[in-house]
């Protein structure tokens, strides 16, 4: 089993550990619901070092990214910025979702953990014609600081003032690694992609400051409340971005840019494709992956589901027919339960309701 450099720290904090794609990772340190609310109301710190870091080196790195990445890397060229998007196969199916970090001429990628070997071969295969070196940065750790108080804590943790001045998706160099204003919770926050010893320092300082350690269980309910997809649940190679709520990450604006998957996507009518919707269960219960949705206007299936601590109801992402109405039922243990189909930005709805 793979272990991050913070593995011992998790054990000391009495985390419940779980096998996550071959990594022994903290599921929670106590109550998942308490951890979730700590991130929504204050701040929390996550070890997400199981994720994969690549660095790309070569004069034609931008051309390479312009070809393999479906969002347009030109948006962050010569800027210290990160950009979210997908890599597609030739049929337009999603191979992975990832973030590319552009910082002072460097290009780094953080992608999922379960897709590591697949992505490594894919990148290396396509990098040849651009003479780009694709390097796995296995000696790096990734730590996320997330929550409304993240901005107050950041200066104390990294001892540089400028980090708190980063704008959304802004990136800066830090001790041989990067700090970026990114995250996976729907809250303000920062992610550190840094050498292991720096990662341990950051973690220790955060714990000393009383910032709550957050496990993968709360990470999942936080991302789902924010309406953020999870690779393997809400998207995979069998579905294209329009069917996965990610049409907004596909950039066709430069007609000259021949990225992988473009030709296939251009043949698809996104208006009649299946779509991703948010789902709120009106009754008590919890929506789970695989549950069917039915209505008189179409059907669908739950991809990710959880209990939302903020809404105090079960929420889910589902893939449904494009014409599906807002009123539907979920089939739970052969019984029908009323659901509302809503925007997947569940957090915003909470703010509207208040």
């Amino acid at each position, binding site marked *: 089993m793979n272990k991050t450099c913070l593995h011992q720290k998790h054990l000391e904090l009495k985390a419940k550990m779980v096998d996550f794609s071959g990594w022994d990772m903290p599921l929670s340190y106590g109550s998942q619901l308490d951890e979730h609310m700590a991130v929504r109301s204050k701040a929390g710190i996550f070890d997400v070092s199981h994720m994969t870091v690549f660095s790309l080196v070569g004069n034609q790195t931008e051309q390479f990214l312009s070809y393999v990445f479906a969002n347009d890397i030109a948006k962050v060229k010569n800027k210290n910025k990160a950009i979210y998007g997908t890599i597609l196969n030739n049929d337009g199916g999603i191979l992975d979702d990832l973030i590319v970090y552009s910082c002072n001429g460097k290009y780094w990628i953080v992608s999922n953990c379960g897709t590591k070997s697949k992505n490594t071969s894919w990148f290396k295969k396509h990098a040849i014609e651009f003479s780009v070196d694709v390097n796995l940065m296995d000696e790096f750790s990734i730590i996320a600081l997330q929550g409304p108080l993240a901005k107050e804590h950041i200066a104390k943790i990294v001892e540089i003032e400028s980090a708190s001045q980063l704008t959304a998706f802004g990136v800066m160099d830090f001790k041989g690694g990067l700090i970026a204003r990114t995250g996976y919770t729907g809250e303000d926050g920062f992610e550190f992609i840094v050498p292991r010893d720096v990662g341990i320092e950051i973690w220790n300082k955060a714990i000393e400051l009383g910032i709550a350690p957050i496990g993968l269980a709360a990470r999942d309910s936080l991302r789902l409340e924010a309406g953020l997809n999870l690779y393997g649940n809400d998207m995979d190679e069998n579905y294209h971005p329009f069917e996965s709520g990610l049409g907004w990450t596909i950039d066709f604006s430069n007609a000259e840019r021949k990225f992988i998957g473009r030709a296939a996507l251009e043949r698809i009518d996104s208006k009649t494709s299946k779509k991703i919707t948010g789902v709120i269960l009106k009754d*008590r219960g*919890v929506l789970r992956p695989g549950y069917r949705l039915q209505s008189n206007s179409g059907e669908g299936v739950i991809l990710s589901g959880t209990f939302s601590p903020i809404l105090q109801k079960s929420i889910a992402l589902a893939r449904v027919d494009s014409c599906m109405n807002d009123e539907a039922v979920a089939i739970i243990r052969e019984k029908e339960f009323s659901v509302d189909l809503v925007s997947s930005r569940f957090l915003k709805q909470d703010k509207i309701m208040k």
Partner: protein
Amino acid sequence: MREIPGDLKFLSSHEWARIEDDGTVTVGISDHAQDLLGDIVFVELPEVGKILSAEGEAAIVESVKAASDVYSPLSGEIIAVNSLLEDNPEIVNESPYEDGWFFKIKPDNLDELADLLDAESYADSCED
């Protein structure tokens, strides 16, 4: 982990049964079960008057992580349910052997108790 009360009998699927002085049986899930499930957010209880068979499905408990069936350790009729759990399912996490009980049954045949595990055997089965 909490100590397992010695007067309880168990199914290996983590339900406990306690024989009360009036001959009725109270049923809940073990501390080990609530710990495996994590934060419990929903409990679906049976209706009073329902007839259950031993090891038949009686209730459903849902945590953030998973849904799980709760089986009846004995056959009999449901005579009471813990309706507190409807609004406060977290009681099962906090007090699995006391306030977090699920339902009470009037047992058909107390001889069925012999088929259940005692506290020690149950604890052993959890370690396997």
